[in-house]
C-alpha cells in the first residue's frame, strides 16, 4: 500500500535549514495497523504529513497504492486525499459552524455526491460511531471523545484506503482514549490500513507494528507477537 524509498525532507527558514527526515525507507502493506512513535522533533508528524500528501518532500520516492506521489499539483493532491486518505487530527479540526452530520458529509460534497445521498451515508457512519442522536449538534456542543468520533466518521465516509491519525488521543483523557482506540482498532479489523502517530505507549501498544523514529531516521521497529511487542530489527543500515 505504502512504499517509501530514501525519503528526505528539510525545512528552510531565513536563518537556518532543518533536515527533518534523513532517508526513510518504509513499506506498509494493505490492512496493516501501524503506529509511529518518537520524541518530539524526531520527524514523525512530518512523515505523516508527507504520507497524507499535506506536505511535499525533497528527495526519494513515495508510492501510494501504486501511484507515485511526487510533484503533484494542488488539484491532483486534493483528489488523492479525497479518494485515498482519511485524516484524524489531535485537535479534531471539525468546522465549527457545521453540525456533526454536515461535518461528516463534507468530503462527499467534494466528491460531488448529492446532498440527500451524502446525508444518508453520513448518518450511517455517525450511527456506527454511536452518535446518531448527536447528528444535529455543533462541535462546541460535543465532548472531546464525541468530536474525535465525528472526525473519524468524516475520515471514513469517502471509503479511504488509508487512515492517518495524528495524535488522535492527544487531547483526550484515558477513558476516552480507550474508546477512540477501540474505534480505530475495529476499523482496522474491517481491513483499512491504519497509521497512527503518537507518543503514548498505550496507543502504540494497541497497534500491530510500531515504528520508532529518532532524529529523522527509523531507529527500530517492533511487531506484535502473541499480543506482545518485541524488537525485531534496527532498520537504518
Amino acid at each position: 500500500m505504502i512504499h517509501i524509498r530514501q525519503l528526505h525532507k528539510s525545512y528552510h527558514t531565513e536563518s537556518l535549514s532543518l533536515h527533518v527526515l534523513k532517508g526513510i525507507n518504509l513499506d506498509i502493506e494493505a490492512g496493516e495497523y501501524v503506529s509511529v512513535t518518537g520524541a518530539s522533533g524526531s520527524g514523525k508528524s512530518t512523515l505523516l504529513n508527507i504520507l497524507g500528501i499535506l506536505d511535499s518532500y525533497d528527495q526519494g520516492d513515495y508510492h501510494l497504492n501504486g501511484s507515485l506521489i511526487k510533484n503533484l499539483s494542488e488539484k491532483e493532491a486534493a483528489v488523492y486525499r479525497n479518494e485515498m486518505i482519511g485524516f484524524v487530527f489531535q485537535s479534531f479540526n471539525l468546522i465549527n459552524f457545521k453540525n456533526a452530520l454536515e461535518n461528516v458529509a463534507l468530503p462527499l460534497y467534494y466528491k460531488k455526491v448529492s446532498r440527500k445521498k451524502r446525508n444518508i451515508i453520513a448518518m450511517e457512519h455517525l450511527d456506527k460511531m454511536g452518535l446518531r442522536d448527536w447528528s444535529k449538534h455543533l462541535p462546541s456542543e460535543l465532548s472531546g471523545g464525541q468530536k474525535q468520533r465525528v472526525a473519524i466518521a468524516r475520515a471514513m465516509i469517502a471509503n479511504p484506503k488509508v487512515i492517518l491519525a495524528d495524535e488522535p488521543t492527544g487531547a483526550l483523557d484515558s477513558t476516552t482514549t480507550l474508546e477512540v482506540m477501540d474505534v480505530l482498532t475495529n476499523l482496522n479489523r474491517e481491513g483499512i490500513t491504519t497509521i497512527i502517530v503518537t507518543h503514548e505507549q498505550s496507543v502504540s501498544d494497541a497497534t500491530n507494528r510500531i515504528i520508532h523514529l529518532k532524529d529523522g531516521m527509523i531507529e527500530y521497529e517492533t511487531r506484535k507477537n502473541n499480543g506482545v511487542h518485541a524488537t525485531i530489527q534496527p532498520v537504518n543500515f
Partner: protein
Amino acid sequence: MRDQFQEIFDTLKKNKLRTTLTGLSVSWGIFILIVLLGAGNGLKNGVMQNFSSRAVNSINLWSGTTSMPHNGLKSGRQLAFTENEVDAINNQVEESRLITARYNTSQTISYESEYGSYGLRGVMPNYLDIEKLLIHPGDGRFINELDMKEKNKVIVLDQKIAEVLFKNEQPLGKQVKVGQVMFKVVGINAKKEQYGGSNAYIPFSTAQAIYNPRRKFWQITFTVDGLTTKTENDRFNESLRGMMGQRLNFNPEDQQALYIYNAQSEYVETIKIFGGITFFVTIIGILTLIAGIVGVSNIMLVSVKERTREIGIRKAIGATPLSILKTIIMESIFITTIFGYMGMLMGIGLTELVNFFMVQTANGKPVTDEPQMSIFTNPTVDIGYAIFATVVLIFAGVIAGYLPARKAVRVQPIEAMRQE
C-alpha cells in the same frame, strides 16, 4: 450547481455576524452614495427649474429717469421707449432674435356679474416664447401677427382670471369687458408667474390705440443668441446702453436712465456655480465609494483570515484550491449583490419618497399668486448611476475576497489547521 449554492447559503446563514457586517458596509455605502447624488441632483434640478420658467437668453430693458445732465438737458427727465426702439433693436442689434414691446397697465376685467382688477399687458406675439407661456391644447391660442396688424380686440387670460370670471363656463370665444371696451377671449395661459399677480394679454397695437394715447412705454424684452461668456454679455450690455443713450438722449454712464436685466449673464454665472456643485458632489460620491470599497475589502480580508483554518480542513478532506476559491468568491458576490441591491433600493426609496412628498406638498397648495420657487426639486438619481455604483462595489468585494483567499488557499493545510 444547486448544491454549491446551498453550501454557500449555509455558510452565510451560519456566520450571521460576518455576513451582516459585510452586507451592511456594502448597503450603507450604496445608500449614502445614492442619497448624496440625489441631494445634488435635487439642488441642480431645483435651480434649473427656476431658470426654465423663462427664456434663459432674454434681456429686459426698462427706461428710467436720468440722473445726469446730458447734451444740455438737465437731469431728472423721465425716459420712455417708442416703437422705434423696438425696430432699432430688431434691425440693428445683430444678436437679437425674438422681441416684444410691453405696455403694462391695470384694468378692471369683468364678465357678467364677475369682475376683478388685473394686470393688462399689451404684448407682441413673441411674448409667448420669450416668457414661455403655456397654452394647453384646447385652451385656444396666443396673440398673433394678424391681431397686431388689425388691432383686434382679443385677449388671453391667465388661468386664475378665467376661473374667477367664468367659474365652470367655457371662456373661449366669450366677450369680457376690459375697462370700457369689450374683448374676445382667444386663449388661456396655464403658466403661473413666479412673481406678481395674474395678467391678461392683449395685442400691443391694440393696447397702444386704446389705453396709451401718448404711445410711450417703459419695457422691452428680447432674446439674444451667441452670447456665451460673462465677458461677452457684459460687453453686449454696454453697447446696448450706448445705443439707447444715443436714441433716448442720455449719458451712457447714467445707470439710472436705463435698467438692463440680462438673464443670460446670470445663467452663465449660475452654470459656473453649478459646475462647482456637480464637481463637489462627484468628489464626495467618489470618496464615499472608496470608503465603501475599503470597508468591504477590510471585512473580506478579515473574514478570509478568520477562515484560514476552515480552508485548511476543507483542503485536507479533498477540496481543490479552485473549488475553495470559487466558494469564497461566490460568497462575496452573493453578499455584495444582495446587500448592495438592498442599499440601492433603500437609497432610491428614500429619494423617491422625499420627491413624492415634495410633489404632494406642491400639488396640495391652492392656486395662489405666491411665487412657485423651490431650491430643491426631484432629488432622484439616474438608475444607471445607482447600478454602476453597485456593480463597482460588487467588483471591489470580489477582488477583496479573491486576493486574500488566493493566499489562504496556497497555505499548506497543516499550517492552516494549526491556526487557532
